[in-house]
């Protein structure tokens, strides 16, 4: 039982690293998508640079409040749920 006290902080530390990496990745993917959406839109040909920056900033702000960012919490939820299910079925 005392082993759990060692395993839990370790698991949380590892999952926190995974969480940070995945959220950086997800943010980067979203920013790239916004940049490409702007750059390939023929209607925005020749638009000013700060217009583009404002568009991307607005998109990132929407991402910050969106569902997709909250889904990254599954990085914690799924492994811990799997561990609980394992404990239940093994013992």
């Amino acid at each position, binding site marked *: 039982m005392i082993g759990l006290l060692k395993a839990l902080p370790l698991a949380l530390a590892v999952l926190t690293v995974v969480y940070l990496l995945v959220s950086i990745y997800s943010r980067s993917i979203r920013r790239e998508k916004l940049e490409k959406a702007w750059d390939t839109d023929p209607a925005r040909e020749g638009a000013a640079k700060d217009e583009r920056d404002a568009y991307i900033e607005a998109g990132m702000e929407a991402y910050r409040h969106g569902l997709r960012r909250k889904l990254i919490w599954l990085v914690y939820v799924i492994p811990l749920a799997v561990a609980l299910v394992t404990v239940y079925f*093994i013992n």
Partner: protein
Amino acid sequence: MWTNIKWAFRIIAAVFVLAFLHYTLPQHDIVRLTGTYNRLTTVGPENSWAYASPDSGTQESTTTRDIRFIETAFADGDVMVYRNEDTGWIWPPYFKYDSSNLQAEAGNLKSDAANPKWVVVTHYGWRLPILSVYPNAVSVREATGPDEQIIPYVSIVVIAFLIFIVVMIRRMWAQFWERSVEPMAAEVGETWDGVEARATGVFGRIKAWFKPGPAKR
């Protein structure tokens, strides 16, 4: 030559990964349980990797301790001996702490050759007699018969998940490279071009590298 070394390295790495998975993932044997006992066992440096770490469960000594064993026989007469130990909480992640109950269940399912009762033993690990290494039994249940087909769902899910992880790591690395490293390298490259244009000779170039130049932005 270089390709051969690369391939040898890759093959060795693949063998290690496959052996590791084969050791760790659960497997099922359909056997007849013939005996359960515990034996004072000395775990040495050659096989301690295959036994529970001393602080998992209630064991306290690293070297000599009581370990539960389950003796079994296959339908074709081959035998297999499993150990029955708690796994602890870190590795392998079976989180097993009911060894005593499992030993009781196994004792309850014992049968003889005349009246066989077939049992599915879920276990991980290998039997290596030369190192006194035993697979660890994780659970037992009665089988429908000696020929029951068992689909290894857990292994399928775990391997699929590992493939997903590898693909995600590759994609994340590619994204990091494309978005962070390449723009930086392009900038350094431009700076370098500026340095080269001004400097002559190897030392001149190195010296110029440390001077603030017009190409830096």
